[in-house]
C-alpha cells in the first residue's frame, strides 16, 4: 500500500465518535446476565409449543395414564360362558358374585367366546359339559386370567353349597402410595427434566449456533460464562416450576401423598436439572446443525426412556442389565425422587444415587466447557 505514509503511529483517536448522550448510561456487572435471563424467558413464553411440551403435555400424560390404569377393584373379571344346556345354571351360580360386581358374565357361542378370549376381551371361558361339570379355559401368563379362574371357581363352589373348614375374614385396603399413578408421577417428572435439559439447552444452543446468534453474542463484550449461567438458571427455574406443577397435580387430582420433605424434593430436582442440563450442553458443544443434534438427543434419551423406570419398573429387565440401568442418570433420579416422595426417605439415604447424578452432571459439564464452540 504505497499511498500510505509509512511513518504513522498507531494510537487511540482523541475523540470518541458520536455526540455524548444527555444521560450517560453505565451498566453494572450483572446487567448482561439479567437481560439474558429475561430475554430467555420471554422467548420461551412466546413459543406456544414450548409451553405445551413443558407444562401441559406431562399433565395430560399423567391424567391419561392415571385414568387408563386406575386401580380397578380386583374381581370384576370378565367371563364368557359357552351357550348350551348348562349355561343358565352357570349364570345362576355366579349371580351373587355378579351382584357384588366381582364377576361380569355373558353367554356366547363357543366360537365367539374363544375368539374374544384370545383378543383379551374376556379373562376366562367357562364351558358347561353334559355331565353337569364345568371346564375352565384360562391363560396362566395373564394375571387377570388367573384371578378370574380363582374368583369364578370360588364363587361357583360357594354358591353350590361348599362349606369352608376355616373361618377367615378380610379388610379392604387401597392406600395412596402404592398405586400406579403414584409410581408414574415421579417418573414423568424425571422424564420431563431430562427432555427439557436436552432439548431446552442442547437443541436451543445448536439452533443459536446455526443462526450465528452465538457468534454475534461472542462478538460483544458479553461474558460468556454469564450467557451459559443465564441459560442454566432459567432452565432451573422452569424445572422447579414443572416439579411443583406435576406433584401439585398428583396431590390435587389423584390424592397423591408426598411423604418426604419439600426441601429434599427441590434439592433433588435442582440436581437433576443441573445434571440433564449439563448433558444437554455436552450434546450441543460441537454440532453445527439442528438436525444432527436432534439425532444425538434421541440416541441419548431413548435408552433412558425405556430402561430408567419411567412408565414401568426396570426390575423387569434381565439381571445382567441391572448395573448398567442403575448407572443411568434418569434411573438414579427417578429412584431417588420416588424414595423421597413415596417412602419419605431422607436425602442422606440416597447418597449413591446423588453421586451418580453429580458424576454425570460434573463430567458432562467439564467436557462441554472444554469442547464448546461459539462459532
Amino acid at each position: 500500500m504505497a499511498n500510505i505514509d509509512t511513518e504513522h503511529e498507531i494510537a487511540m483517536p482523541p475523540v470518541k465518535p458520536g455526540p455524548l448522550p444527555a444521560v450517560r448510561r453505565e451498566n453494572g456487572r450483572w446487567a448482561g446476565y439479567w437481560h439474558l435471563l429475561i430475554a430467555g424467558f420471554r422467548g420461551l413464553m412466546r413459543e406456544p409449543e414450548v409451553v405445551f411440551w413443558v407444562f401441559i403435555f406431562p399433565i395430560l400424560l399423567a391424567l391419561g395414564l392415571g385414568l387408563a390404569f386406575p386401580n380397578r377393584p380386583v374381581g370384576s373379571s370378565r367371563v364368557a360362558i359357552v351357550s348350551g344346556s348348562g349355561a343358565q345354571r352357570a349364570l345362576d351360580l355366579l349371580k351373587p358374585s355378579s351382584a357384588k360386581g366381582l364377576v361380569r358374565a355373558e353367554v356366547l357361542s363357543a366360537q365367539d367366546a374363544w375368539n374374544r378370549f384370545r383378543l383379551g376381551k374376556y379373562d376366562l371361558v367357562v364351558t358347561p359339559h353334559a355331565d353337569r361339570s364345568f371346564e375352565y379355559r384360562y391363560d396362566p401368563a395373564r394375571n387377570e386370567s388367573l384371578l378370574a379362574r380363582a374368583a369364578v371357581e370360588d364363587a361357583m363352589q360357594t354358591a353350590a353349597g361348599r362349606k369352608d373348614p376355616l373361618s377367615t375374614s378380610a379388610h379392604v385396603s387401597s392406600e395412596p402410595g402404592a398405586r400406579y399413578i403414584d409410581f408414574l408421577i415421579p417418573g414423568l417428572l424425571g422424564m420431563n427434566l431430562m427432555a427439557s435439559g436436552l432439548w431446552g439447552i442442547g437443541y436451543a444452543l445448536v439452533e443459536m449456533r446455526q443462526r450465528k446468534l452465538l457468534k454475534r453474542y461472542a462478538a460483544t463484550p458479553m461474558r460468556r460464562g454469564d450467557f451459559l449461567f443465564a441459560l442454566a438458571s432459567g432452565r432451573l427455574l422452569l424445572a422447579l416450576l414443572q416439579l411443583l406443577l406435576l406433584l401439585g397435580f398428583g396431590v390435587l387430582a389423584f390424592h397423591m401423598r408426598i411423604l418426604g420433605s419439600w426441601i429434599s424434593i427441590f434439592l433433588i430436582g435442582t440436581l437433576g436439572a443441573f445434571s440433564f442440563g449439563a448433558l444437554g450442553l455436552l450434546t450441543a458443544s460441537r454440532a453445527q446443525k439442528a438436525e444432527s443434534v436432534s439425532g444425538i438427543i434421541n440416541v441419548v434419551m431413548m435408552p433412558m426412556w425405556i430402561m430408567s423406570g419411567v412408565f414401568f419398573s426396570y426390575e423387569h429387565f434381565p439381571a445382567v442389565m441391572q448395573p448398567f440401568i442403575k448407572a443411568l442418570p434418569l434411573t438414579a433420579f427417578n429412584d431417588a425422587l420416588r424414595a423421597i416422595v413415596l417412602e419419605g426417605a431422607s436425602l442422606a439415604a440416597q447418597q449413591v444415587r446423588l453421586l451418580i447424578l453429580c458424576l454425570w452432571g460434573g463430567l458432562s459439564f467439564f467436557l462441554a466447557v472444554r469442547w464448546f464452540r461459539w462459532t
Partner: protein
Amino acid sequence: MNLAIRCRNLRKTYDDRVEALRGLDLEIRVGECFGLLGPNGAGKTTTIEILEGLLAPTSGEVEVLGRTWDTHSRELREMLGISLQETRLNEKLTVRETLELFASFYRYPRPPLQVMEEMALTEKSDAWVEKLSGGQRQRLAVATALVADPQILFLDEPTTGLDPQSRRQLWEIVRQFQRRGGTVLLTTHYMDEAERLCDRIAIVDHGVMIASGTPAELIEKLGGHRMVEFTTAGGEFAADSWSSLPGVEAVHQGNGTVVLSVRRLHETVPALLAALESRGSDLLHLTTRDASLEDVFVRLTGRRLRED
C-alpha cells in the same frame, strides 16, 4: 497518521488444506470508510472475522486501535460494533428488547431509544423480529452494532439482498456514523456501493490483495478513464487488432462484446469506425461510458465480479 486497523501478512488455512488468506496487508485510517471488495470466496469474510477477533489467523499480525486480540480482547470488544453476515436474531423478541439486550453487554452503551430513532426503527419498536422485512432486519443488525457506541463499525455485506431503497438507507447510516468521527470497515461485492461509500478500497481475490487505493486512483491505474463497448455481426477478431488502434490502453473480449479502455474518445472512436468499415463488418451496438471499479476488477482478474 492514526491507524484504526493494521494487519500484516495475514494468512488463514482451514483444515490444513483450504488457503483462504495468503498474506494480506491492510492499513485502515481512523475516520475513513474502507471497503473490502471481491467476489464470493475471495477471503473477505475471513479477513473481517479475524479483525473482529472471532477467528484466529494461522499467521500474521493484527492491531486494532493499537491493541492486539491476545492481550486486550475485552477492551477491544467494548470499542467495536459488529454486524455479521446473515445473523438471525431471536425471532420472538421485539426490536426494542433486542437492542436493550445488546446494550446491556456494554459498559457504556448508547441509549437504545436514540439508536432506534436514528435507524428509523421507532415505529417497529414493539414488533417481533420475525415480523420485520429484510431491510428492517438489516437495519436492526446494524443497530445492535451501534448501541455499542463503537469507534469502529464492521459491516459484512450489509446490503446483500436488499432492495435499492433499503440499500440507500443503509449507506446514509454509514455516512452519518462516519460524520461523527467513526471508522467503518465493510465488505461488499457491489461495485457501485464501494464506489459511492468508501474513501478507500482494497480489492481482494483468492486470498490476496490485488489493488488498493481510492476509487478514483484505482480507475486512474486502469490507464484509460473511458470505456468503449461494441458488438459486431462479423464474429470475433483477435484482441491485437483492436489494441493497435490509437489511444487504446487495454482490450477485453467476452460474449461477443469487445470492451476497450481508452484515453480519449475522440481519437479512438473515429479510428474504430474506420477500421470496422475497412473490414466490412456491421456494427450492431456501440456505447461509451466512464470506467468503473467493475472494469478495474475485470482488468485485474479477467473475470467479472458477479456472474449474473
